[in-house]
């Protein structure tokens, strides 16, 4: 975080608010989860927040994001409605998908959050198609497609990068490389540790940010976004990161033995939330934190009080008009 002095304080505050908000929401979900009030498997973003925040702070409201089942951070970082998110996790009709999607399918089109999928890699071509439509309409907006290192194994990843480069589409691909597809290390799945280099071969600029530094992520995003808006075609960012919790659920998973505690603890030592917090005055930090705490309490209370969808809703939204 050596170059922090060059970044203005407003941005630092925004980073801190967003990182803190995601972390606290996830921690509250983890706390509530054992009560079984949350009717949806949760893939927590704890530890990976900086990627979503660094990218989304560089985007405009009208830009679109497409995500994955580990998508709470992206949803919140892009400005997704917290109340609707928590209600969705509770399976309530007031949720962002009326309770029909759950944690893995968060969407908020008002804030450019175009949905998430539970099937690895499936949103990458959809994001690419959206970018095609933006270019077709000569829009100045762009698409950011988030996915993990597991998605790189899928054919759709390669097919999409090829097409995006071929058509010079306005899309930023973001690989959140947390090393594991569930419990499978990426070097058990890939010959080489070179995801970002592979992207270059399809015909787009690409780089890796290896240390999770949110300022580096933000700067790189800005650099590529400017090029994308100039019509220069897609770009690719591989951001190394670390999932602190188990693949799915609220707990640690070191007992499984597939990774060591040391692997995670070095990321925890450089936790961007802590480091960014130290750049702010105690008063500023407390002001941000207390506001976020109130917002979280309100969101969980909203979810608790909201009704479940009624029986007849089961056939609603299969089609635009029921057949």
């Amino acid at each position: 975080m050596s170059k922090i002095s060059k970044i203005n304080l407003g941005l630092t505050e925004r980073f801190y608010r967003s990182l803190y908000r995601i972390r606290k929401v996830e921690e509250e979900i983890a706390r509530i989860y054992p009560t079984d009030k949350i009717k949806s498997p949760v893939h927590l973003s704890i530890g990976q927040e900086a990627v979503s925040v660094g990218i989304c702070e560089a985007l405009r409201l009208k830009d679109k994001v497409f995500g994955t089942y580990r998508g709470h951070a992206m949803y919140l970082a892009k400005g997704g409605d917290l109340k609707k998110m928590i209600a969705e996790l509770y399976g309530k009709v007031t949720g962002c998908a009326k309770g029909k999607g759950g944690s893995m399918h968060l969407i908020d089109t008002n804030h450019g959050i175009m949905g998430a999928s539970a099937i690895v890699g499936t949103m990458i071509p959809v994001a690419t198609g959206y970018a095609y439509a933006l270019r077709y309409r000569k829009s100045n907006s762009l698409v950011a497609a988030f996915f993990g290192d597991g998605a790189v194994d899928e054919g759709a990843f390669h097919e999409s990068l090829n097409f995006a480069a071929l058509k010079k589409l306005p899309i930023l691909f973001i690989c959140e490389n947390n090393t594991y597809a569930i419990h499978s290390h990426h070097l058990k799945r890939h010959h080489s540790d070179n995801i970002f280099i592979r992207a270059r071969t399809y015909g787009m600029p690409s780089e890796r940010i290896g240390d999770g530094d949110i300022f580096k992520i933000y700067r790189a995003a800005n650099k590529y976004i400017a090029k994308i808006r100039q019509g220069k075609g897609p770009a690719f960012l591989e951001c190394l990161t670390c999932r602190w919790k188990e693949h799915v659920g609220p707990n640690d998973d070191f007992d499984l033995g597939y990774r060591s505690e040391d692997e995670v603890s070095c990321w925890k030592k450089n936790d961007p939330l802590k480091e960014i917090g130290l750049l702010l005055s105690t008063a500023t930090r407390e002001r941000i934190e207390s506001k976020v705490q109130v917002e979280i309490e309100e969101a969980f209370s909203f979810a608790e009080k909201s009704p479940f969808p009624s029986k007849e809703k089961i056939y609603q939204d299969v089609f635009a008009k029921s057949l």
Partner: protein
Amino acid sequence: MRILTYPEAVREATDQEMSIDPSVIVLGQGVDDPKAILGTTKGLAAKFGPTRVFDTPLSEDAMTGVAIGAALAGLRPIHIHIRMDFMLLAMNQLVNMVAKMRYMFGGSVSVPIVIRSIIGKSWGQGPQHSQSIYPLFMNIPGLKIIAPSTPYDAKGCLINAIRDNDPVIFIEHRLLYYQKSYVPAKPYTTAFGKARILSKGRDITLVGISQMAIECLRASIYLFKETGIRAEVIDPVSLAPLDIDTIARSVKKTGRLIIVDNAWVPCGLGAEIISRLLVESKLKGFVAQRMGFAHTTCPTTPALEKYFYPNAQSIAMKAYQICRPGKKHWRPNTKLKIEEVEFKGPF
């Protein structure tokens, strides 16, 4: 009366909708090549330009996703597969994504895409160029599945599909490309969920899917000319939603039914229609038979392929057995070529 062939009707529907609505785009392998998907996209790339009509990499899965993403952004893509078999490469996007998106996102998105695909047959199409996989899709909620047999319905249904706000799988058949019929010049829509009675009759109901509707029509001519049996031939046109009421009314009248599927029989239209007649329409006491592809892989050699598909003759013989039980074996002498039998209307 203006007469068009099936591919001319498909082309005209696409051209007219593209002219009316700039959000309609066409993509697929070979859509802008000299053969232009058997003529159905002929001239469209020149007329509407390469951003609206474009060839794709051989990436069926991702290109389906691209069409979905473009539809999310408000475009109305038509994604074309020159063989239906290729759709199997896109099942992830079709089943896991597009069929579910409106629902799993709580109604906050619309995905108005049309997937056109053509079923192959004969000339050695063989195991992987002849498949007809609509029964797989009929099992999935969230998809509309249309398989018109006449040029008139092809145009009306395709325009309806393009204007529809949900994903539509539009199924054509290579041998239907010989069909000609009256097709109005102006754009018109044929609503989904309405079967078409191709021929009136009181003795037996023949329900034919896609090209099998024409085989049934041929069979009905053989039956009437040689035995006096009057078959009512129904083309469901729309497989999902399915117009069971029109079929039920016919079977109530005839008491006899053969469903000739253009696919393998297990879990197909035969099973679906008979079940719904029993359970939903509460029909009793009718005789029913199912026909369809032999339950084996489609052989390439014509020596075996001729046993793979139902045809006018085998359908007529089966109908005769049902209508005249106990009578001695009958085999039709009449032989009409595929292109000799067409539904002439009234539409």
